[in-house]
């Protein structure tokens, strides 16, 4: 330091023209701030372990391409999930305890929509031995497994019995919820990683199962394929259809003539899809369900939209007999039910009210009471309880055969199927590298609900240097003093009259303004979103932030460890660590 001691007059005071930086005040401290990210509850609850706070931050900054790439690290289907996922993430959003949850699903869709035609910077890692893996079935599980196996460097052959890829996304979900063009774009992005595709030939039929022996590993993701029957008289009548068949026909471009008045049996997503599709075909629709609205397994959004569009619901009705009238209409006799007790899955049980029946007439009936897994084409040893049997790492009784999606025992949703594809890809990689004994899954978990991080897997896979596990952040750990109350942003919708005229997409997505507001509502629990609180409040001005490269540095030579940065961080990202 260059201090000038001026004694030229008695009015003088000492002045320094050097910098006080030479004084390493950081040596005085007992604690140092550490940036430690945590897992947000949304991220933990997403079966795919999506880095939600991160992609919302990037989207909010207008960095949509980076946001897309952040999603694609864990989930190859942002366009699909942004439209049809049941978004459990939103049920656990901490913002819900403050005012209203963030519109995560709509944001995922927005990111996909605005980055359309963008070629993401995603490449397979180099894998010299490049073994071959067969994937049977191209639904969300199969395509995800193929995608992640490809990223892990394997040569993948994808077998699909139908002429087009997509499985339930292609044939089961109506156009007004998931336009085919969106699905096509997502599948094309996956296929760009060079995946060998064989369509129109069914394994177990045109292709013998033994044909799969030449692969180093096999992933079975054949979905369900069988419609469950009601087991009642009249079920095989001409005007009684299976929900899956109707959706398949509509999704194949057909417009089945189902009549003016239709009864749909069931309370799941297929029932809702069928009911709403029937409205679009010009029918009046009654949905009959044996429990009440609260027990319906369908996504809440779908039930609400069906109600809004004019589907009539009749609850506590179990069909017992279907017959044909002279005027060729059908008559359905229902047993009236009541709720009593709970079943194994903690749902109310419905039991008959003795002697009480109801009869409804209609032009046709569509049954949508669930699907069974077609196991006829696989060796008997692979199945159990009408499902393909797998252990926790998705391995069947044959160590080189793995399975996932709706064919195994897990919730039948798109995102759980995607998650099983990812998990299977990791299992297959571990198997092919002879690392099955290592407990890798606990090292790459996202929270405690089963989600896995492919990014964590890729970073630790080679050297075994696994990144530190992030704990799940609790609501009280947030410093909500820095947040302002605001309303959740909802997508606008096609008006009802227009919507019912055809199969145009109902949800219209967010505008860029709405997306900006929506992204900024995210508390970014446990993930730095460069709010600059620490920067502004640091009394010493020692913090440098670089949002572009997402880095943060603290000048520890001068940090006295006052802890202000940790106190003012709204998202619990800065922690004070005692110096040893």
């Amino acid at each position: 330091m260059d201090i000038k001691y001026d004694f030229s007059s008695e009015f003088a005071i000492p002045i320094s023209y050097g910098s006080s930086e030479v004084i390493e005040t950081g040596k005085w401290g007992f604690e140092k701030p550490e940036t430690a990210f945590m897992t947000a509850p949304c991220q933990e609850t997403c079966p795919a372990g999506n880095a939600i706070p991160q992609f919302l931050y990037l989207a909010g900054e207008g960095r949509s391409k980076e946001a897309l790439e952040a999603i694609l690290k864990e989930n190859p289907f942002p366009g699909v999930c942004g439209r049809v996922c049941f978004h459990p993430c939103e049920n656990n959003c901490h913002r819900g305890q403050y005012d209203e949850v963030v519109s995560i699903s709509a944001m995922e869709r927005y990111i996909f929509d605005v980055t359309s035609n963008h070629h993401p910077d995603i490449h397979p890692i180099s894998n010299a031995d490049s073994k071959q893996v067969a994937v049977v079935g191209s639904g969300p599980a199969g395509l995800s497994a193929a995608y992640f196996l490809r990223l892990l460097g394997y040569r993948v052959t994808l077998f699909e019995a139908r002429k087009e890829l997509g499985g339930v996304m292609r044939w089961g979900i109506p156009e007004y919820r998931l336009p085919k063009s969106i699905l096509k774009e997502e599948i094309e992005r996956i296929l760009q990683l060079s995946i060998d595709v064989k369509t129109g030939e069914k394994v177990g039929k045109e292709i013998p199962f033994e044909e799969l022996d030449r692969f180093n590993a096999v992933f079975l993701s054949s979905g369900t394929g069988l419609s469950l029957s009601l087991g009642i008289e009249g079920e095989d009548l001409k005007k009684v259809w299976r929900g899956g068949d109707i959706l398949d026909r509509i999704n194949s471009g057909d417009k089945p003539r189902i009549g003016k008045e239709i009864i749909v049996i069931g309370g799941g997503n297929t029932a809702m899809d069928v009911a709403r599709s029937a409205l679009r075909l010009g029918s009046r629709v009654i949905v009959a369900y044996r429990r009440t609205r609260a027990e319906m397994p369908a996504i809440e959004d779908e039930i609400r939209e069906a109600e809004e569009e004019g589907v009539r619901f009749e609850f506590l009705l179990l069909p017992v007999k279907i017959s044909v009238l002279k005027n060729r209409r059908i008559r359905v006799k229902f047993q009236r039910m009541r709720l009593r007790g709970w079943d194994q899955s903690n749902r109310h049980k419905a039991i008959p009210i003795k002697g009480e029946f109801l009869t409804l007439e209609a032009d046709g009936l569509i049954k949508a009471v669930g699907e069974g897994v077609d196991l006829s084409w696989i060796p008997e040893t692979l199945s159990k309880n009408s499902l393909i049997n797998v252990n926790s790492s998705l391995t069947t009784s044959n160590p080189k055969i793995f399975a996932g999606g709706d064919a195994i025992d897990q919730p039948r949703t798109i995102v759980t199927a995607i998650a099983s594809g990812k998990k299977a890809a990791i299992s297959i990689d571990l198997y092919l590298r002879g690392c099955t004994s290592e407990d890798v899954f606990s090292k790459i978990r996202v929270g405690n609900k089963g989600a896995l991080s492919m990014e964590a897997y890729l970073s630790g896979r080679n050297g075994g240097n696994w990144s530190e596990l992030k704990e799940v952040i609790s609501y009280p750990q947030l410093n909500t003093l820095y947040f302002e109350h605001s309303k959740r942003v909802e997508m606008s919708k096609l008006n009802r009259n227009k919507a019912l005229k055809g199969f145009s997409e109902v949800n219209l997505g967010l505008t860029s303004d709405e997306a900006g507001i929506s992204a900024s509502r995210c508390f970014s629990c446990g993930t730095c979103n460069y709010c600059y609180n620490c920067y502004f409040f640091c009394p010493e001005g020692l913090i440098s932030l670089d949002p572009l490269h997402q880095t943060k540095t603290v000048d520890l030579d001068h940090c006295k460890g006052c802890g202000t940065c940790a106190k003012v961080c709204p998202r619990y990202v800065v922690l004070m660590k005692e110096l040893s």
Partner: protein
Amino acid sequence: MKEFMTGNHAVARAVRLCRTPLIAAYPITPQTPIYEKLSEWEASGELKGIMMRTESEHSAMAACIAASLTGVRTFTATSSQGIALMHEMLHFAAGCRVPVVMANVNRLLAAPWGFWADQLDSLSQRDTGWIQLYCENGQESLDTVIQAYKIAEQVYLPVMLSLEAFFVSHFMEVVDLPEQERVDRFLPPIDLPHKFDIDKPGFLVPVVSSELYRKYKHMAQISVDSVKEIAVRVDQEFKKEFGRGYGIIEPVMLDDAEVVIVTAGSITSTARLAIKDLRKQGNKIGLLKLRLFRPFPVEAVRVALRGKKKIAVIDRNISLGCGGIFCQELRAALVHSPDHPLTYSYIAGIGGTDVTPEVIQKIALDVMSKNEPTDAPIWVMEDY
């Protein structure tokens, strides 16, 4: 031009007349009217400076120090808890040799809470290195602000003037307002040395060695001492320009007095009246008004009180465990005088209690009746 106004507004008017470019303050009763008046003039454009509203008195003083180091005249006003909060920065101001001028409206210090006149707030800042002047009325407060700049800018030391809550700050009196041209002549615009210079960045108050610290303190002591002469000279120049002067002390009917009442601040004007009556009754009594408190005018006081028999110092303050603060200072000043008078400490007017001519007469009669020295302060209560 004469105007009827409060002591607070007289102070504000003086600040405007001195063309102070930077005022930084925080409101506090009973000082707030100064703050409000200056804000009003800033809004109307009559004040050519910046009225900076800081978040505390500590910050107000920090702002004044920093601004002064960039070369401009600065002002702040405060009171009681405000000056207590400012304490740390008062040392910085004196140590940085900045000629900041501050008006302190004397108000008691909590606890218990109150707003009334008491000199303990400014006297508690005795050792901060500030020059301190005590004003008797609104006119003197106005004139002292103008004099304060002239003193401060010659010695590069901050000056505090004190006026008592309500008795001076809020009572309205006729005040003779000096003309702007004459103030400009007496106190021309100034460009203080730029200690802060953007072309040559540096920082003040670096760490210094023990010896250097001692050296700077010693230089400051020499400067503060020189104020005794400078203040007299400035007052004389002021009298020449404006026709009014106050001296650093003011002897009243002292020549033949045997007993002397010593006061500072507004009690002086009451004492002037009481003395007249006591004189009429044939008592050889006089009055000494203390105006400059820091530096303490030891020599002037010694000369003024030479040969007197008894002194009664009336203090509107108390240093608990000792006595009236003006009395302590006076005793210390007289200790080297041969045959120095007996000095009695009377505590009157604490917490804004009224000191009437009758109270002063009682004190005078009491001191005249005493023949033995008394160390302890004598509290003047209603039943006294």
